[in-house]
């Protein structure tokens, strides 16, 4: 029980930390990565909260596809910005 609690707290700290990084960093790319990391932490938290389905989805969609989409758009914007 306490172990579960500890893991939860750790996850929470990780998420909030990632969120802060995402908010405070100057680099958009870092922010996107931090948000992806946050999603990963979230899926761990979901496992802890006995929600494996949600965890899978969050991992695949939240940290996977979303992050990729961000990078994709970011990449294009950067390249065009340079022109």
């Amino acid at each position: 029980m306490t172990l579960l609690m500890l893991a939860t707290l750790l996850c929470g700290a990780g998420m909030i930390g990632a969120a802060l990084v995402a908010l405070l960093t100057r680099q958009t790319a870092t922010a996107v990565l931090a948000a992806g990391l946050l999603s990963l932490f979230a899926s761990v938290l979901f496992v802890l909260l006995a929600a494996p389905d949600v965890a899978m989805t969050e991992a695949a969609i939240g940290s996977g596809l979303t992050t990729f989409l961000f990078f994709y758009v970011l990449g294009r914007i950067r390249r065009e910005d340079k022109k």
Partner: protein
Amino acid sequence: MAQVSLLIGFTLILLGLYGALTNRDILRMIVSFTIADAGVNVVLVSVGYMAHRTAPILDSAVPAGQAAARIIDPVPQVLVLTAIVIGLGVTALMLAYAYRLFRLRGSLDISQFMDLKW
């Protein structure tokens, strides 16, 4: 346990909102919204959490007869699944808009897009 994760979720929502309301960069606003969305998802799942119970899957460990006493509430999880997918959709859409807006002005600063007012 549930309260702790609720707090985590709410904190994420507020952090996300703060970011979305203070960052002028459109992409950063969208990132902030995904953080807030993650927070909402955590809140939803936390509400369904019940201590000392297992995930809502009826395998050999949890026979159907005992299910009502052994599993946690599946409904919030279902809602979160839906919410995550919808969140992806909205994020993708906002990103496409952001890209279009960027091509319009060559800038991602939201205060550049104030042609419509009053």
